């Protein structure tokens, strides 16, 4: 029994990574109604930028803030240049665009910074948290930052005018235009915010998984899965989904015999799929009543 609760705690700790990534995923989904496969790579690229700044002697928090600003701007620029032209194209074509962006970012990062693993510092230290062997101070810090981000997003969407405008533009773009909202810029803004959140996620994750161009692959999948599990329309659902996915992954790794690292992913995904079959719109998603 103690092993189980320990594993659950450990799962929550690793789940913070997925929760953070899931937040970025939900953010973009709220803004543009699709999932951007390139988000993980963009987060990785941002993290590399931060690393590079620190190599140049810029202190951690300055690099953090600078990276955040550059990522926000970068997200907007990428959307305006590459995806605004595809706004009228079919969704599947946009998805192909995400895949193309993935390939480009991954490749460029590999060229600039090569594929050797690098260390990325954490501002939280890596001592055991409150004496617990399972959660380090860094992981506690991750959970803290994720919850802060969640609070920020909640506040942003619920209580600010621009948050309201973004929600309107994402759910009913035509009606949004009819109240004077520039839906095109709302999408750009959504991309910027998602990039920023992704950058934070990347900078929190890198100390744990080590910085290299392929670091976000697995994380992104779990992030997606977490976002989907949570219901795609709810930042809270995304975060809880992230923690749940972390727990699933850990339990699968511990209790299912023969489940090495490579088998964990499909099994965890399978579990999520089972949840979805039972609850098709995710745990916290709105039940959508479809009328013709």
């Amino acid at each position: 029994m103690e092993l189980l609760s320990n594993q659950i705690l450990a799962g929550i700790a690793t789940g913070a990574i997925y929760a953070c990534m899931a937040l970025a995923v939900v953010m973009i989904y709220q803004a543009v109604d699709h999932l951007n496969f390139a988000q993980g790579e963009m987060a990785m690229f941002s993290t590399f930028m931060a690393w590079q700044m620190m190599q140049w002697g810029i202190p951690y928090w300055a690099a953090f803030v600078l990276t955040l600003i550059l990522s926000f701007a970068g997200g907007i620029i990428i959307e305006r240049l590459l995806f605004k032209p595809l706004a009228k194209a079919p969704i599947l074509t946009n998805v192909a665009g995400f895949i193309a962006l993935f390939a480009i970012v991954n490749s460029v990062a590999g060229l600039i910074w090569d594929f050797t693993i690098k260390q990325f510092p954490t501002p939280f230290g890596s001592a055991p948290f409150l004496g617990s062997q399972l959660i380090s101070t860094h992981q506690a810090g991750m959970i803290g930052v994720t919850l802060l981000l969640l609070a920020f997003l909640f506040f942003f969407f619920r209580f600010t005018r621009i948050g309201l405008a973004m929600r309107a533009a994402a759910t009913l773009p035509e009606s949004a235009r009819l109240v004077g909202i520039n839906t095109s810029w709302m999408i750009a803004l959504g991309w910027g915010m998602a990039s920023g959140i992704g950058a934070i996620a990347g900078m929190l994750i890198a100390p744990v998984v080590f910085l290299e161009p392929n670091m976000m692959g697995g994380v992104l999948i779990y992030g997606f899965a977490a976002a989907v599990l949570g219901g795609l329309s709810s930042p809270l659902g995304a975060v809880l989904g992230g923690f749940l996915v972390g727990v699933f992954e850990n339990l699968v790794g511990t209790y299912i015999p023969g489940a090495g690292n490579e088998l964990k992913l499909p099994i965890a995904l399978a579990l999520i799929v089972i949840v979805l079959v039972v609850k098709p719109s995710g745990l916290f998603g709105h039940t959508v009543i479809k009328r013709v």
Partner: protein
Amino acid sequence: MTAMLDIKDLRAYYGQVQALHGLEFHLKEGSMTTLLGANGAGKTTTLRAICNMVRSTGTIEFEGKPLLGKTTENIVRLGIAHVPQGRGTFTNMTVEENLQLGAISRSDKAGIVSDIERMYEHFPVLKQRHTQQAGTLSGGEQQMLAVARALMLRPRLMLLDEPSFGLAPLIVRDLFKILGKINRDDKVTILVVEQNAQLALELADTAYVIETGRIVMSGKASDIANNEDVRKSYLGY
């Protein structure tokens, strides 16, 4: 008097299909005009063309400013509110959020707050339900919400697309009474597209009849209502 809305030779296309064939009409400031016609005649297309929601050519001028070529949201910001077919309510947001969205292009916070109060006075049922999700309101209530949302823009011109659709006659009467009040008291020019010609003609002062993308009749609403031939050929009653 210069027309508030001036439309000349308007042609509109859905892909390769042409829906409007050289439409021409004008709205006087302060008027309550109704655009009548059968299903598929082009009434909705006309409203959509005004807001540049459909590909069109020709001239559309609002208070002397050309509209064609402007984006929908910029046209709206000039002071044209459009209540579309189906109402376009933000169903998963609250009633109050819907009203706030109506005013999202305005920057005068105090004005917005007082306008929301005014809407609650016009439509008490909205005040009752102001924290409810808009999707849970009845058809009539959603229509009121849609009108209220449009009014939050403080529009100079309001376009309504079949506001009576799916509503019980008594509710439609109430709605039209309110529209009349808004037209007279708040000096909002109104253009109502309707299939329910009888009620619309009672409400409006001017009427246009559209058939297969062209205006076939125009004049005072009372004249058209009293003209049996017109009623029988174009309006079906």
